[in-house]
Every structure is written in structure tokens, then in C-alpha cells.
């Protein structure tokens, strides 16, 4: 009989103690390393809806849709799992301290239907122009800007009105009271074109 070599014996004994090398995966959950780049996830509280992530995404995996008719105007932000390449550019470009969209550790993303399961959405409230109904930006975005530029935000009525509205300082009564003076348009949140029109007239 051929005797086993010493190396083989050592390996056999080692295997008895250490256990098998093969992972126990489907029976035991797998945890990737902390740095693993998994699916990007929106943080609905932090995200300001600025679309910077959509701009930089190399794979066009981020999209948006502005719904303005019927009730509340909102912007739906899409992240398409079936197109995303998990590169993390969106996270690096995020203006909200890189926290509006963040790569998670999620790797188990298999799904069965691309029509219904292949994307994730969040809704952001939109600010419309009060004269023409044009989309200006997300409410959170305007607030974010006015917070960032501090007192400079008083140079733009749109910015400080959105700030004041947020604080509850002005309400509809004040606005309707102003309307009587005939120049109430100037005290509205307006898109750039309407702002120019009202200033010129």
C-alpha cells in the first residue's frame, strides 16, 4: 500500500481542525466587506432633488419624472437597478454632503420582472412658478440653497420666500393682502422668465 506523504497528513489534520474552506453561503448569510460597493440608495430626508447624480451617472441609471398635473406637484427620482454599474459617482457628486444618495452594502438584488421590480423611486415635492406653473426646483433644493448662502439669499425673492414659507412666517393671508397693492406678483415664487417679466413691467 502506498503510504500518504507527511505533507498530505498535515493537510488532512489541518482540515479537520480548521473546517472546510468552502463557504456555507446559501445556508448562512454572506456579509461583504465594509467597503463593498452595493446598490445606491436614496435618503429621502437628505436628498434635495437637484439631479446632480443624474448628470454624472455614466450609465444613465438615474432618471426623474416631474408630475405637475393633479394635486401636489412632485418629482419622482428613479434609480434603475438593471442599468446601474455601482461605480459610486453619484455618491461622490451628491451636493447634500454625499448623503442624499449613498452606496449601500446590498448585493443580493436578483429579480424576476424588469417592468415592475427593476427600479427604486423616491418622491420630492416640487416648487412651481406661481404665475406660469413652470418647474423651478424641488422645495428642499431651494431651502438648501438659501441655507448655504445665508444672508445673501435675501437678494432673490424666490429664495427668501421659500425660506420664509418654510418657517411659517408668511401665509396666504399676507399674500392676498399684498395682492391689493397691485404689485403682488413681485412677492411670489417665480421662475426666471416670469421674474424678468414682473420686474420689467
Amino acid at each position, binding site marked *: 500500500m502506498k503510504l500518504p506523504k507527511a505533507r498530505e497528513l498535515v493537510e488532512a489534520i489541518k482540515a479537520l481542525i480548521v473546517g472546510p474552506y468552502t463557504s456555507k453561503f446559501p445556508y448562512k448569510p454572506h456579509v461583504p466587506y465594509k467597503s463593498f460597493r452595493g446598490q445606491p440608495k436614496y435618503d429621502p430626508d437628505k436628498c434635495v432633488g437637484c439631479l446632480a447624480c443624474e448628470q454624472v451617472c455614466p450609465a444613465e441609471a438615474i432618471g426623474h419624472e416631474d408630475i405637475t398635473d393633479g394635486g401636489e406637484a412632485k418629482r419622482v427620482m428613479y434609480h*434603475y437597478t*438593471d*442599468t446601474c454599474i455601482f461605480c459610486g459617482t453619484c455618491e461622490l457628486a451628491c451636493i447634500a454632503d454625499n448623503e442624499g444618495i449613498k452606496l449601500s452594502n446590498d448585493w443580493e438584488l436578483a429579480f424576476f420582472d*424588469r*417592468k415592475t421590480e*427593476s427600479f427604486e423611486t423616491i418622491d420630492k415635492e416640487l416648487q412651481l412658478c406661481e404665475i406660469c406653473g413652470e418647474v423651478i426646483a424641488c422645495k428642499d433644493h431651494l431651502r438648501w440653497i438659501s441655507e448655504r448662502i445665508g444672508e445673501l439669499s435675501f437678494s432673490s425673492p424666490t429664495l427668501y420666500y421659500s425660506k420664509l414659507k418654510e418657517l411659517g412666517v408668511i401665509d396666504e393671508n399676507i399674500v392676498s393682502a399684498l395682492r391689493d397693492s397691485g404689485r403682488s406678483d413681485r412677492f411670489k415664487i417665480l421662475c426666471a422668465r416670469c421674474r424678468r417679466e414682473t420686474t420689467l413691467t
Partner: protein
Amino acid sequence: MRTREQVLKDLQTRFKDDIVDLLDKSPKRVYMEIKPESIVRVGSYIFKDLEARFNIASGVDARSHIEILYHFSLEYINLLISLRVKLDRKKPVIDSLTTEFKAVNWIEREMSELLGIEFKGHPEMKRLLLPDEWPEGVYPLRTDYEEWDKNAIRDRGV
């Protein structure tokens, strides 16, 4: 071994009439524009006598004309010579270098297929990689390339 100055001087004197322009961009890069008809002489001289390694050729559609850049690297002086030839965009024709050394063969076919450059004297010029249903006379790397396939889906396709 020759130094960098010797090599450049040698090229300039030897091909005085062929060189249109010489751009000494940096210590490691030299761009040399030559007349299209002298490509075989200059190319084979650099490859054989200067013992350069042929890196690759790159065809560029520059809107007003079509350019080909043949890149040669001379490792012993750490220099990269790019030969530039400018061709007429309507009918780009140039002599093939395949007879001089084998390494050019593939890239010439590639350029002929994707940029529509004709290589005179290439031993076998036929369709390469694009599929059979690809229409004649459509060159994807030209700047004026337009989608020809009506069935193609250019979004996620859901």
C-alpha cells in the same frame, strides 16, 4: 545606440522633402506630419533601421480631413514618434504598409472598415468584424455617423 537628437536630425535630413511639419511636444513625444505618398518609405525606415516597435495606428475623422497617426516607440531613448498623414475626406486613399511589416495588417483592415479608408496594395481587404447585415458605406467611427437600424432600442428597453 543613437541619442534622441541624432534620431530626429537623421529623420529631418533624410526625409527633408517628405516632412510637412514636426512638433516636438515633450521629451517623450514627437509628432511628425508627412506627405501621404511617402508613408511606406518613412514608416519602414523607422521600423527597420531605427528598430522601433510599432505601437498602433489610429485613424481620426477630423471633419475637414481624415488623419492617420502611426505610432512608433523607440525604447532605447524612451521616445514615441507619431507619424501623421492627412487624407482627403471625400476619398481617403493611402498605400498599405503591410508589405513592410506584419504588425500593421489588422489595424489597416480595422480602419478600412470603421473609417472607410482605402489601403492600396493590402493583400486581403474584406469585411472584418461588423456583421453581415451592416450596410455598405456606413462607417461608425466617422463623425457624421447616424443610426441606421430602425429596430434598435436606445433606452433601457422596458
